[in-house]
C-alpha cells in the first residue's frame, strides 16, 4: 500500500523531491528550470501535470495554463486548486488538440512514461510552437555505475521503482533524446542540465559531459524549418 505521500507522488512518473525556495515554498528544481523558459503571458499545455504544481507556479507568472494528467488523484487535486486540468492520456488524447493551440507544450518528466515518445513529441510541436521536455538522464554516472557494478537495473532517489513496477517504460539519455529531436527536425533552442545535487551545470560543456553528469535535462524545442 502506498501511504499518503507516496500517493501524491505516484502521479509523477518520477519522484523528484521538492526543494525549498527563498519563500519557504517547495518548488521542484526542474519546475523552476521549465518556468524560466516560458515567456510570461503565454499559453501553456502541461502534459502529465501531476498535482498541478508546475501549472500553479506558471500561473503566478501570468501564464494561461492547461494540463493533462493520467492519474485521477492528480487531476482532482489540480481541479480543486482551480487549474484547468483534464484527465487524459498523452498517447491517445493529444490528437484531439488543434494545431498551434498553445505557445508551449510541456512534458515535465513524463515523456519516458509514454508508449510512443516520438509520436508524442511530434504532437507537442504540432499543438504548440514550442515544446519543453524535461527528462531523467539514464546516462548519468550513478546509473552507469549502478548497472556496471550492481548488475541490476539502477534505482535512484529520483527513479525509485523496480523495473517491473516503474511507469517509466522508455528511458533515454540526454544524447538519445537530442538524437530524437534531430530525427524529427525539432530545433533545440536551449538545453539545461542539473547535477545530482540539483545544481545547474553551467559550463559550456560538451555533450558527453552533460550526458555523464546531468541527472536531469530540460530541452526547449521549436519546430524546425521544414518537418519531415
Amino acid at each position, binding site marked *: 500500500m502506498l501511504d499518503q505521500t507516496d500517493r501524491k507522488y505516484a502521479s509523477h512518473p518520477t519522484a523528484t523531491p521538492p526543494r525549498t525556495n527563498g519563500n519557504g515554498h517547495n518548488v521542484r528544481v526542474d519546475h523552476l528550470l521549465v518556468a524560466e523558459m516560458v515567456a510570461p503571458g503565454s499559453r501553456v499545455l502541461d502534459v502529465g501535470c501531476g498535482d498541478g504544481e508546475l501549472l500553479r507556479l506558471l500561473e503566478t507568472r501570468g501564464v*494561461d495554463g492547461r494540463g493533462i494528467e493520467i492519474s485521477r488523484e492528480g487531476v482532482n487535486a489540480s481541479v*480543486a486548486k*482551480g487549474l484547468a*486540468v483534464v484527465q*487524459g492520456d498523452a498517447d491517445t488524447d493529444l490528437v484531439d488538440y488543434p494545431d498551434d493551440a498553445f505557445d508551449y507544450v510541456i512534458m515535465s518528466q513524463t515523456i519516458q512514461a509514454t508508449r510512443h515518445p516520438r509520436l508524442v513529441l511530434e504532437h507537442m510541436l504540432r499543438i504548440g510552437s514550442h515544446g519543453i521536455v524535461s527528462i531523467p538522464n539514464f546516462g548519468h554516472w550513478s546509473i552507469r555505475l549502478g548497472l556496471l557494478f550492481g548488475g541490476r537495473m539502477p534505482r535512484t532517489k529520483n527513479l525509485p521503482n523496480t523495473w517491473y513496477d516503474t511507469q517509466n517504460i522508455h528511458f533515454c539519455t540526454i544524447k538519445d533524446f537530442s538524437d530524437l529531436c534531430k530525427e524529427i527536425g525539432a530545433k533545440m533552442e536551449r538545453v539545461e542540465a542539473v547535477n545530482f545535487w540539483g545544481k545547474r551545470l553551467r559550463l559550456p560543456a560538451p555533450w558527453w559531459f552533460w550526458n555523464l553528469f546531468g541527472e536531469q535535462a530540460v530541452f526547449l524545442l521549436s519546430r524546425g524549418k521544414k518537418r519531415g
Partner: protein
Amino acid sequence: MANVELKTSRDVAARLREAESPHSLVARFGLDQPLKLDAGLDLAPFQIAYQTYGTLNAAKSNAVLVCHALTGDQHVHNVHPVTGKKGWWDIMIGPGKPIDTDRYFVICSNVIGGCMGSTGPASVDPLSGEYYGLNFPVITVRDMVRAQAMLIDRLGIDTLFAVVGGSMGGMQVLQWAASFPQRVFAAMPIACATRHSAQNIAFHEVGRQAVMADPDWRGGKYLLEGTNPRRGLSVARMAAHITYLSDAALHRKFGRRFQDRSNPTFSFDADFEVESYLRYQGSSFVERFDPNSYLYLTRAMDYFDLAADYDGILANAWRGTKTRFCVVSFTSDWLFPTSESRATVHALNAAAARVSFAEIVTDKGHDAFLLDEPELFAIVRGFLGSAGIARGLVK
C-alpha cells in the same frame, strides 16, 4: 378558470396551486414577449417561477444560475412548499457551502414545461381557459435555456458568473455555453452528455408508456376529468430511479434484506426492502409531479443532441468560446457514463476552450451529484473560486 378546480383531490390541488401561483418569485411575459420554441411556435403569454439566494452585487457580476434536473425544481436551497423537505441541493448551496451564497447571487428557475410554477402542461392556457395538457407544445432543452435567458434579461443581468447543473441541468449548462457564450463566464456541466443515448431514450419511453397506459391518464386530460394517473407515474419513477443508482449502491443499501419480516410471504407484497423503497419513491413522487410534465421533460432530454445543431461537429458548438468549463462525471454513473463527459471534453479541447475535467470515484451512481461527495465539493469550490478571482469577485 373557475371550473378547473372541480373534482381534484387534495394532493392534486396542492400541486396545481404551485403550477398556477407558486410559492416563488414569478416573472411574467406577455403576448408581446413570446418564447420562440424550436417546434416553430410562439409560447405567449408565459411565466417563469424562480428562487434567488444571496445578494446581487452592484456590478451584477456574481450571479450563478443553477439548472435543475428532470424532476427537480427551483427550490434548491429552501424548504419545498409541497413536500416540506429541504432544498434538493442544500448540501451544495448556502452560506459557506461550495456555491457560497455569501459570495454569489444564486438563481434557480423552474424549467419551461415544468410543474412548479413555470408554464407547462399543468398550467391553464389563458386563451382557452383550460389546462394545456397535451395541447402544450413539445419543448426542448434549448427552449428551456432561451426562457432562462429571458429571465436573466428581466433581472438586468448581462453575464452570468457561472451556470451549474447536473443531468438535465448539465444539458442546459452545455446549451447555455453554446447559445450564449458571451453571457457565461464559467460553466459546470455535471453527470451529463451532449446527446441523449439510445439506452436513455429507451428508459424514458418505458416511463412514458407507463404513464400513458394508466387508464386514469385519460389521453392526457386527467386534470379536466378529475383523475390522477398516479400508478402509471409511480411505475415510471420506480423504473427511472433504478437508473439513478448503481448495482453496488443498491446492494450496499438493501442487499436482499426483507422488509419488516423474516420470511418471504409467498405473495407479491413488498417483501424486500428494495421493493418497499422503490414503492415509496414512486408514491412520494406523484404527490409533487405532474404526469404530463414528466412526458414533456423526458421528451426534451430525448431530443437533446447539441452536435446536430452544429452540422454534426460538436466542437463547433463552442468554437471561439471564452467560457471556462469544468466537466465532472462519476465512475458508477451508467446513465451518463464518463465516456460521455470525455467526448464533451474532447470537443472542448478541439475548440481550444479552457476546460477542467474530473471523474469522481463513487458507487452512488448518477445521483452522486446530489449527495455528500466531498471530492465534488472541493472541485466546485476550487473551480468557482479560481473563476471568481479571474472575474474580479475576490481580490
